[in-house]
């Protein structure tokens, strides 16, 4: 399902990250980075919540508004019952929608926000996402200090909080259109191979977006997928060619860009809801503002994984949402 927008703009964005991102290639483009995983908090979960708090604070400072002037706050994260978002929202006191599509939550939030702003349901809204490496490891995998080996094709959850401010005011980056994806399950059961889980959903959404908008793949200066990792990226290129006969051009993957994969201990790259927006709101927006990129398609991919279902030997479904951004 593809929607076009006439008057929606991402006016301003903010990013807060943890230590691994700080040592990655885009370190200078983030608004704030922490050197540890606690940020002065007592637990990983409250630390993740603080990432959202801080990203919203920085965003409000940038746009010169108080939280009472914001109509809506949409937020998502990986934690059970969306605790990070919920606890941050309880302190912010802005009307709140909590959303979950795993690592596709960032674009899901932008799509909901863009529709509400376009149709004048709200005048402005803030879309946030967060993820925290240690909190995610604790919930989905093993204790943080446990050193059991993992396969080299697994991904490393990014630590970060990202916020975007959407209005009808013509400033910043234009939201041109969006495509809401469908859930796809290709029978992959390997929890460490999330790239392979998400590729079919990503391909499906890119194909439907191009078909609905009657565009060629070369229309975009950059198609940026969420967190497929360095091997998932290769699988997607192959999959697009064999399944849809599309040769991916100008394509890259946020998971492969956010870290220095060769020199940081991050396996096949980043993952998590904050992986795509951390790259998009820093590097991609910077390139768009400099005029080096004009049209960008962000495709956030989410593996809808639940440890209980995986233990029951069920395969992992996945989803991808796309949003098309343009320079004004």
């Amino acid at each position, binding site marked *: 399902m593809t929607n076009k927008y006439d008057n929606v703009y991402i006016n301003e964005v903010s990013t807060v990250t943890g230590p691994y991102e700080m040592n990655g290639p885009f370190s200078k483009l983030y608004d704030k980075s922490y050197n540890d995983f606690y940020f002065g908090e*007592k637990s990983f979960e409250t630390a993740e919540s603080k990432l959202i708090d801080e990203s919203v604070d920085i965003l409000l400072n940038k746009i010169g508004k108080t939280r009472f002037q914001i109509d809506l706050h949409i937020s998502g994260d990986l934690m059970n019952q969306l605790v990070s978002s919920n606890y941050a929202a309880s302190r912010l006191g802005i009307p709140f929608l909590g959303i979950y599509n795993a690592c596709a939550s960032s674009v899901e939030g932008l799509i909901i926000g863009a529709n509400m702003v376009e149709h004048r349901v709200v005048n402005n809204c803030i879309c946030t996402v967060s993820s925290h490496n240690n909190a995610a490891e604790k919930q989905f995998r093993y*204790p943080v200090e446990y*050193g059991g080996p993992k396969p080299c094709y697994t991904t490393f959850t990014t630590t970060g909080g990202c916020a975007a401010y959407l209005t009808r005011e013509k400033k910043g980056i234009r939201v041109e259109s969006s495509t809401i994806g469908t859930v796809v399950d*290709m029978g992959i059961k390997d929890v460490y191979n999330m790239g*392979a889980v998400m590729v079919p959903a990503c391909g499906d959404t890119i194909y439907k977006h191009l078909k609905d908008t009657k565009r060629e793949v070369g229309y975009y200066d950059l198609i940026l997928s969420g967190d497929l990792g360095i091997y998932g990226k*290769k*699988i997607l290129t*192959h999959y697009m060619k*064999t399944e849809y006969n599309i040769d991916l051009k100008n394509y890259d993957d946020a998971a492969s860009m956010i870290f220095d994969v060769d020199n940081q201990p991050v396996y096949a790259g980043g993952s998590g809801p904050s992986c795509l927006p951390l790259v998009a709101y820093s590097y991609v927006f910077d390139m768009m503002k400099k005029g080096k990129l004009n049209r960008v398609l962000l495709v956030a991919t989410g593996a809808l994984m639940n440890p209980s279902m995986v233990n029951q030997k069920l395969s992992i479904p996945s989803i991808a949402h796309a949003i098309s951004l343009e320079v004004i």
Partner: protein
Amino acid sequence: MEKRKYQSIVKKYTPKENRLYNGLVAFVVGGLMGVLGEVLMELYSYFLNIPTKEASVFMIVTLIFFGCLFTCLGFFDRVVHFAKCGLIVPITGFAHAMQSAALEFRKEGMIMGLGANMFKLSGSVIVFGVVSAYVFGLIRLLLMGA
């Protein structure tokens, strides 16, 4: 695309682990752990003047203590990650699994947090350790007598 066809594409691009290298590292590190255990046992036996059987208990407790201590100091996960089964199969792996879970859930209270989650990784080892001890004990009893 058929699921099977897609899975063959995935297989093509998913790198394989270097099993020979991993096995070799685990073999060497595991062997060194064995040597360390033997040396400790002999030392305890010699200096405390106790039989080897008792000294082996002292040796195991020592290895568990250092496994836990190094886990708490925060570098043992990287060592285990490198050595793999060389440190996971010996008693150090068991200590590491329990201690890391205990550290993780300490903030959720002593009863519902630490106590309830400490055996998250190692619980299965205990359960199936007891089961197999029972089975093999029974076999030994039936074949070789009491």
